[in-house]
């Protein structure tokens, strides 16, 4: 009987040790630097340049331009947008701001990060950052929680002096995200991610299947962006691991408790074969 007890304690200890390990084994977004990072930026929501997470997009523009990019964010991610602005050699004090909008063009709040920054005259560059809230798989329609889909970034100068208007500036944008794991796994899910124009796109695809629509060539869509490994189905979360391990541990504890009170084996008084 001692063996059973020892075994159960070891199993318990093992289970407890294994649970957090399983919980923390989150797939880290590998920054893949290849040549496909865009070198331009759009000038409106409609023309926003699509950037994948983990890539550094560059763009040259003029002070006063509104530079737009879009990136995909999936459930469980907490995206961080960092923008770097290279200012011209001579300029007056300038304030720059980065704004993030979701797929419904609702402005999204930044939890941390310098969203607005002023560069004193003569400063060569400035850096802006915005850490968004964690993207949830579902929220009530009355909330403006971040949902999986397209996100827009707008970078612009606020309150420019006329002398600075139109001066050449360079911009860099990078989006990375932290995987928040099962702590952010909520119930419910959207049928389609919050990608603008997705209804039009899917109906066009349906037509294509019927064989009467051939608009594959350069047909413009509002947003064709998708994460590298597709939108998550929302089925897997590490809560399965936690709950499963919890069940196993409960069973083991149950056996332990039973063994403790029931005593070892059959009662001594009971004759064998009874």
């Amino acid at each position, binding site marked *: 009987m001692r063996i059973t007890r020892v075994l159960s304690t070891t199993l318990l200890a093992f289970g407890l040790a294994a649970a957090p390990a399983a919980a923390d084994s989150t797939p880290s977004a590998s920054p893949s630097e290849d040549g496909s990072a865009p070198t331009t930026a759009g000038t409106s*929501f409609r023309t926003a340049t699509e950037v994948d997470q983990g890539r550094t997009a560059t763009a040259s523009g*003029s002070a006063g331009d509104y530079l737009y990019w879009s990136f995909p964010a999936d459930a469980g991610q907490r995206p961080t947008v960092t923008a770097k602005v290279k200012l011209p050699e001579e300029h007056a004090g300038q304030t720059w701001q980065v704004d993030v909008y979701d*797929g*419904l*063009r*609702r402005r999204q709040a930044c939890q941390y990060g310098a969203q607005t920054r002023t560069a004193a005259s003569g400063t060569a560059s400035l850096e802006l950052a915005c850490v968004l809230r964690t993207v949830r798989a579902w929220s009530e329609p009355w909330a403006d929680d971040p949902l999986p889909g397209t996100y827009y970034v707008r970078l612009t100068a606020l309150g420019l002096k006329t002398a600075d208007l139109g001066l050449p500036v360079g911009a860099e944008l990078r989006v990375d995200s932290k995987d928040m794991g099962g702590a952010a796994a909520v119930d*419910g899910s959207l*049928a389609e991610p919050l990608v603008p124009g997705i209804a039009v796109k899917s109906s066009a695809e349906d037509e294509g299947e019927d064989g009467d629509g051939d608009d594959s060539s350069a047909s413009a869509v509002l947003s064709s962006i998708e994460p590298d490994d597709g939108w998550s189905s929302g089925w897997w979360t590490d809560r399965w691991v936690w709950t499963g391990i919890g069940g196993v541990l409960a069973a083991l504890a149950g056996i332990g408790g039973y063994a403790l*009170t029931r005593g070892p084996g059959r009662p001594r008084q009971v004759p064998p074969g009874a």
Partner: protein
Amino acid sequence: MIRTQRLAAGFCALLAALTAGLAFPAGAVADETTANAPKVNLVLDVSGSMRAKDIDGGSRMAAAKQAFNEVLDATPEEVRLGIRTLGANYPGDDQKTGCKDTAQLYPVGPLDRTEAKAAVATLTPTGWTPIGPALLKAAEDLDGGTGSKRIVLISDGEDTCAPLDPCEVAREIAAKGIGLTIDTLGLVPNVKMRQQLSCIAEATGGTYTSVEHTEELTDKVNQLVDRAADPVVTPVATQGADSCAKAPTLKSGLYTDREEFGQERWYRVDLDPGKELRASVSVSADRAMNPDYGLLVRAVTAHGREIVRGEAAGNGRTDVISTGLRYPKAESDDDAPAETVCVQVTNSYSAAAGVKTTPGMPLELTVDVVDGPSQASDVASFGLGRGWWLLGALVLAGFLAGVLWGWLSRWRVAVWRTN
């Protein structure tokens, strides 16, 4: 003498333009692929001031010519490119004549690089700077077709043809709703010119750039031409009504409209049960606005009950204010008819006295009707648990259950023994 030379040069330019025009009739855009080809009209200032030698040691005109040559080489195949000049032909002092001086140097159409370059080579800095009339004509050049349209204005001086304000002209062009963008480039600009050119750009959602070097000019024009070549969704023009009853019914798609200060715009969307409506609205600030503004979009039932709203407010310099909403309609068992959802859009932009209030600001509306979400029945995913408290609670519960079971079986054995 100089005068006759200039006249001759102007005549040459005209001739070149005419021959080019004959060789490539602008009306040759018939088949479907060219109907949605992107169109770009380069509008070049050839006024007398372009003679100034302050760009990389050469004259502004030389810089412009060099830039044009490189741009013409790099223009993507699908782009229909045209060139229009302003102030190229009339060297005299009469403002009235000088301000009509704008000519099509190369018509908007399939590009013959050699012809276009030859035409550009004939240009000599000559006359006035009639930006307003040139923009109007340039917009006419781009008429027709469904592709994106872009005017790139390169100028080195502010408009000399008052009272026609080129900024007003730009706004009028934008108000036609043909989706035309005007980008402006100022060569060695002064303060007044910066203001004027950036006003033109902002009125149409374009960009303004100051240029001091030839290379910058080439890069920027190339960038703008390439930008025109990017396929972009063309919105469908619609007109919202002032009440839901009269509102147009919209399907999934991208729409444009105009909304004046303090105006309400209503649209209707038919929503089947089990579907979700997603609407996002942006209203652009295409004129000088007061720095505090807002936007409200509401989804309202046919009976006037508000379902959900999207709000946005902001302050400071902006190009656009936008917000959106989504409304999932619950699934119903019987074949319920589609619900009419009214979408109301109001803005709280304001402008100083003297700023034109009509036409309204450009409004962009995206409507998507998709399948409804699967509703959450619990906060956590599938109601699953997570964390040390959960493990502790489960272990404790399991242990207690085990103890109880142990006691029970002991008690049963004891009962069995006594019997």
